[in-house]
């Protein structure tokens, strides 16, 4: 018998001993970060970055498969006893010697998870993790000239890239309200001093929002540069239009932290058939929120329609994509993203 076969036999035997629980339920009591456990991480330190942003140092569990610079990770954090999931960019380089990863979080007004992470979470806390994902990354063949266009916490995935490897010719145009609001300001100025980066730091409180047309002055060769942009929807919408107008949309890579367009219609009665709950929902509230409000166990992730952590079978009825207004009707095998879908008439969600 092979080793693995022997092991799976032993595991089966162990399951007979622990029934109705699983062996992992007991092992989790001892080591929640062990190999084979659900992926978790332990918060090791919280370093303030600005008045409302902090970097969280996390020791990931043994199952962590690593990340690519620029990717994000979904974290599940218990806030006031309630498990909430959000996605944050990894800001540490891949080759960090101690194997830890960092995420950098800006506390949003009314942001339950972000405020908890920035202001309340204590080292030693175990959080839930998912494998890193996302395609806001550098290609295998590094472009010769690079432009990073960021604002606010949009700097976080870019910082992950800048820390991960050096660029031959990189320009960063970064906007923040005031100098003290610039996350990683000291690191960025160090990179600029070492000539690893040309840094153009804009303060919108005094200089106003960046007019995308000003790029010609700030970075005259912007059109030749492979560009990665991350920040508020206004900046990204303007950038996409600008690049498209110059016929070089393929040179622009964007990462959004929030869904862009909201299209609402009539709602309907939503049935969560597995749980056996039925509630009325309007046409503007994501089904994820509707389910959570009703106490249904809903998987969730980025809450903006990019990570697919929330996909759920649609058993009956129809839902509307809040970003596009597109209607999806139930068919066998149809999965919907509950975080960007609202009821479009009565529907049945398999949760």
């Amino acid at each position, binding site marked *: 018998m092979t080793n693995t076969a022997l092991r799976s036999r032993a595991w089966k*035997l162990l399951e*007979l*001993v622990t*029934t*109705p*629980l699983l062996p992992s*339920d*007991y092992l989790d*009591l001892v080591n929640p970060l062990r190999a084979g456990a659900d992926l978790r991480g332990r918060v090791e330190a919280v370093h303030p970055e600005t008045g409302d942003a902090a970097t969280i140092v996390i020791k990931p569990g043994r199952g962590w498969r690593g990340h690519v610079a620029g990717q994000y990770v979904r974290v599940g954090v*218990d806030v*006031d*006893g*309630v*498990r*909430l999931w959000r996605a944050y960019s990894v800001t540490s380089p891949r080759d960090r010697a101690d194997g830890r990863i960092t995420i950098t979080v800006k506390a949003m007004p009314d942001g339950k998870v972000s405020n908890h992470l920035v202001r309340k979470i204590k080292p030693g806390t175990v959080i839930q993790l998912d494998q890193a994902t996302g395609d806001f990354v550098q290609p295998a063949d590094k472009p010769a000239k690079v432009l990073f266009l960021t604002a606010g916490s949009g700097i976080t995935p870019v910082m992950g890239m800048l820390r991960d490897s050096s660029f031959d010719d990189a320009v960063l145009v970064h906007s923040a309200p005031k100098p003290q609001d610039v996350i990683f300001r000291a690191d960025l100025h160090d990179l600029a001093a070492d000539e690893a980066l040309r840094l153009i730091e804009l303060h919108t409180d005094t200089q106003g929002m960046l007019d995308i047309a000003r790029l010609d002055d700030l970075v005259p060769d912007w059109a030749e540069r492979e560009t990665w942009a991350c920040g508020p929807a206004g900046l990204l919408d303007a950038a996409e239009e600008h690049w498209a107008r110059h016929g070089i949309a393929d040179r622009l890579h964007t990462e959004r932290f929030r869904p862009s367009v909201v299209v609402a219609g009539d709602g309907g009665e939503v049935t969560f058939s*597995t*749980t056996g709950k039925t509630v009325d929902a309007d046409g503007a509230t994501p089904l994820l929120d509707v389910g*959570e409000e009703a*106490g249904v*166990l*809903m998987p969730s992730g980025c809450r903006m329609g990019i990570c697919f952590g929330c996909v759920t079978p649609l058993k009956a009825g129809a839902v509307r994509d809040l970003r596009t207004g597109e209607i999806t009707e139930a068919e066998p095998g149809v999965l919907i993203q509950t975080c960007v879908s609202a009821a479009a008439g009565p529907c049945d969600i398999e949760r």
Partner: protein
Amino acid sequence: MTAIDPTAHLTAAQIEELGRELDAIRDEVMASRGERDAAYIRKVISVQRKLELASRAVLLFSLFPPAWLIGTAGLSVAKILENMEIGHNVLHGQWDWMRDPKIHSTTWEWDHVSPADQWKHSHNELHHTYTNVIGKDNDLGYGIMRVDEDQKWQPMHLGQPLWNFINACFFEYGIAAYDLELGKNLHKRRRNRPEFRARAKAVGRKIRKQVLKDYVIHPLLSGPSFLTTLAATFTANLVRNLWTHSVIMCGHFPEGVQVFERRSIEGETRGQWYLRQMMGSANISGSKLMHIMTGNLSHQIEHHLFPDLPSNRYAEVAVKVRGLFDKYELQYVTGSLPRQVFSAWRKVFRLSLPNKKVKTPEPERELVAA
């Protein structure tokens, strides 16, 4: 034995006001659920698992009498915690708000021969909705006993003290049979229904797993202590059965608890539903440890009013609920465990005989005092 409605002094408006006051109590707790509560249930689960592991480890040497005693006592307590404070309450959805898939009513399975989903249906949906309604709530005597004068006497009730004792010893099997509605479904015409067969199979699987774990694997792992460990796990299951049966009997059977006629719940309002739960349940008084060991079902009245509130909050709710009983001049049935167990058993004995002929005919009664 008089048939007096103990709520007759309340007007319809008062009953609705009572309902609003109870809603307010519920809303207050719901809004304040948080980290402390989450820490509580995680702590109980962690203690229970460690206690069970440690006890089973000690029982590997159960040939040695002190090890048998300590191990059996520990395993009994662990099994009681698992069914009562953890299993029963998690399956009620009391902890669903935490959104932790590992502590959720839709994913939880318990150390019980009745599968979680079958128990949830018969308990959460039927018993908690139709509490103490004759002919609707099968918990009233579990279909084998008569626990109220208004239930019709049949000759088989003569044996009910014995049935009740046997049910107490094998309570989890009794519950599995009850959740399967075995009495009804074993009938020739129903026996072969695929739906029933699937459910019976699920029960069979759970029985097999429990028997294998408690009566085969654990004793085998004990080597020379095989027989003593077998005796220990059997004893622990017996202790749990007797304990849970006693606690649950105290919930609805003691003297002073009201039952209701089928017709009385037609068109029932929220306030009336609350009132029925208040009059149809009884509490057990005792220490904090005692409350935990009963799964906080010692706060049966509060549990029936608010089945999905986290169990660790019933104690604080009980103070307010009791205030409402006083305000509306209603009887809050409570007593120590020995007293309530005695009261319930006395009723089982008394009602094994037909009603005495002192009952006055009252055709249009809504509520009947026991």
